């Protein structure tokens, strides 16, 4: 609590200094102006400049100091750091006061500062990407120091077993050695993604064809937002729906035809995930189908082809890169989807091709590894980051390919869009 009060005190002092700077700057500028000198900027702008020059460097010193404190563990106590930045603030105030003179361009100085701050804000998104990369890679490296990379990629048994005991220095007590073969997890992810795509691509694509080629404007304006609702439903809700409603339905349907299905079968989360990503495919495909120039449709119809033949043989092939790109994007979305599979798919790594059996996915294992009460440094916890790394690479590749394909498509049709 002491630090909190200190920071509050510091903010208060800084605010007061800033206000002093503002009013002193304005008073001085007004005085200079009243004396008859023609100034580059308005008194208010000098005032803002003074306030910025006071608070800006102080905050920067405080932030950088705090960051250095964390990063290098340097032993600068917080009170000293805050005192130092207040000194900087006072210095800034003094400098700003000397700058209040007719030939100083206060507005341009403010402009420069603002541009700098805005660019800094834009850098945050870059930092985020780096943050994700660094956090995943550094922990993944620690994991691969414990476990072989080759076994991780090609192993067919995922059994973290007693790896947390090893981390606690009690390896002998564990019954079996931990194995981290990720193949069953990726097989499960692939199976569920495949089911999802089998549901989403036909329905999404057909809906897009209907909306862009057949539907009257009225139907379109209603159907589009209604489809978007599917993408807006939280995934945890879909997960509950898949586990409580769809999975028992699948089990009883399978029972009717004499098949045995597990209650955490792969089909239920797959189907529900497919429904969730329908709008991704339909809205993107709708866009690209609309972007196919009408001259192509007219040419085809003029040759006597029917509407369906025009769509099937002219429009869809022309829009194919866009449609594939939409499907890839949807696929990356399905692979990274977590809640549906956590709630409806199984926990048991299971290498099988039968969608009625339970199987687990990469994201399920990430959640399972990080929600237990284990030591952070245990191999199981770190394995989550290794899995996350693979997930990151796969989804990023899918996105990149998708973006490149859609850009090529756009360029192809921009020139002859008469």
């Amino acid at each position: 609590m002491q630090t909190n009060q200190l920071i509050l005190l510091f903010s208060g002092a800084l605010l007061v200094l800033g206000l002093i700077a503002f009013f002193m700057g304005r008073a001085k500028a007004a005085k200079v102006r009243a004396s008859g000198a023609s100034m580059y900027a308005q008194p208010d702008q000098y005032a803002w400049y003074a306030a910025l020059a006071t608070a800006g460097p102080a905050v920067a010193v405080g932030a950088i100091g705090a960051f250095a404190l964390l990063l290098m563990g340097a032993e600068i106590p917080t009170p000293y750091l805050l005192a130092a930045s207040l000194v900087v603030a006072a210095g800034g105030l003094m400098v700003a006061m000397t700058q209040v003179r007719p030939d100083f361009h206060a507005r341009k100085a403010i402009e420069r500062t603002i541009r700098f701050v805005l660019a800094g804000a834009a850098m945050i998104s870059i930092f985020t990407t780096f943050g994700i990369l660094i956090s995943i890679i550094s922990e993944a490296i620690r994991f691969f120091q414990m476990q072989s990379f080759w076994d991780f990629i090609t192993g067919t048994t995922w059994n973290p077993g007693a790896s947390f005991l090893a981390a606690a220095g009690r390896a002998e007590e564990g019954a079996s050695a931990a194995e981290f073969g990720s193949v069953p997890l990726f097989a499960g992810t692939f199976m569920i993604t495949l089911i999802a795509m089998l549901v989403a691509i036909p329905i999404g694509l057909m809906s897009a064809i209907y909306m862009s080629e057949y539907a009257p404007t009225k139907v379109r304006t209603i159907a589009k937002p209604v489809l978007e609702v599917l993408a807006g439903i939280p995934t945890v809700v879909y997960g509950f729906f898949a586990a409580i409603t769809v999975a028992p339905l699948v089990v009883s349907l399978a029972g009717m035809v004499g098949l045995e299905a597990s209650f955490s079968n792969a089909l239920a989360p797959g189907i529900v995930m497919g429904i969730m990503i329908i709008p991704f495919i339909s809205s993107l495909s709708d866009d690209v189908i609309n972007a196919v120039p009408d001259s192509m449709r007219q040419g085809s119809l003029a040759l006597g082809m029917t509407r369906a033949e025009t769509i099937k043989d002219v429009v869809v092939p022309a829009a194919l890169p866009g449609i594939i790109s939409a499907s890839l994007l949807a696929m990356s979305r399905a692979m990274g989807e977590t809640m549906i599979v956590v709630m409806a798919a199984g926990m048991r790594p299971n290498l099988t091709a039968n969608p009625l059996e339970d199987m687990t996915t990469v994201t399920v294992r990430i959640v399972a590894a990080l929600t237990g009460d284990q030591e952070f440094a245990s191999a199981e916890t770190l394995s989550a980051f290794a899995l996350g790394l693979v997930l990151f690479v796969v989804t990023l590749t899918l996105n990149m390919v998708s973006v490149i394909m859609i850009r090529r498509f756009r360029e192809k049709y921009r020139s002859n869009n008469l």
Partner: protein
Amino acid sequence: MRQSFDDISAQLKGRHRKSARLKWMSMGALGLAGLFLVFFFTDMLIKGLPAFQQAQIQVQVDYSERAQQLPLAAVEEDVRPLVSRGYLRLIPGRMEDNPDLLGTSRMEWVLADGQVDQYLKGHHTNLNSKEQSVVDQLASEGRAELKFDTNFFTSGDSKMPELAGIASAAMGTVMTLLVTLAVAFPIGVMTAVYLEEFAPDNRFTQIIEININNLAAIPSILFGLLGLAIFINFFGVPRSSPLVGGLTLALMTLPVIIIATRTALRSVPDTIRHAAFGVGCSRWQVVRDHVLPVSMPGIMTGSIIGLAQAMGETAPLIIVGMVAFIPDVSATITDAATVLPAQIFTWAGEPDRAFTEKTAGGILVLLTILIALNATAVVLRKKFERRW
């Protein structure tokens, strides 16, 4: 080889039939998606609506000295298993607050046990046949009823389904989203303003743009890994707190806000900028006094949609530990908290049938808020949308 007209018209008929088939099939696909939505919402309503009602029974409550020591003694033995244990536990406290109660005895409507609730709603219960007959007896006398459950909205999580409510999760959601908004909104708008109004078109700007588009497509669970490794392990932000959850969600929401703001800024016609530059405004003055005010509705709409998205997000919050059991409602950003979707996730994992109902009830609340948020965004857009 020549074909007869009959052949050709027969072929034509087939082609037209095929054409009609495609139309019906594509219509059917759209209908299927719509049908699913109807099925989904009906299913949720059927499962969730009963959660807003809770069984209460009218019993003789005896505020004796013995009840102060042993709360179970406050009610008669035959209805004892039917009264919520959580409710009985409160009796000594109430007697302390209100000493006049001591020694009195009166008929009161009290919260029934979750099993009674399930029995009255016609679901499977663990009540034995004797208890069931007592409940039947009470019900026929009008002393056992389903009443609107205010408890569901005013209390926090509990291990007893009849006492569990969404208030602590709702408060956690509010605190988390406040942090998200406070971080993501200014940074998002500033980034968009920089990219649209200030940035030169160079390599650096392009990298930022590509990067933002990639961020928007990264699976949300990876943001959870970032929150765990950077915010919790490196910066030492308290685990499970709305602060760490809000920061994590802010990074996720950032691309949504940036992209929406850029679209809004781009729709402002250049004539406005030219006019402002023409009277001598600097770039920042143009943006602050002219471009931003005009594009504000668009920015707000985008931010609300981004916020709604963040509100339904669960996976990254589970990773940063926001699935804690939180019985008390607290409005701080550094204490452990949970959010609505995480509460739904926790309840969905409870084996008790009564919790399934609570889960669906929580889902209905969440969906209602999300629909309200999105409707606000749509109304805002309709009302302030300007065509230039």
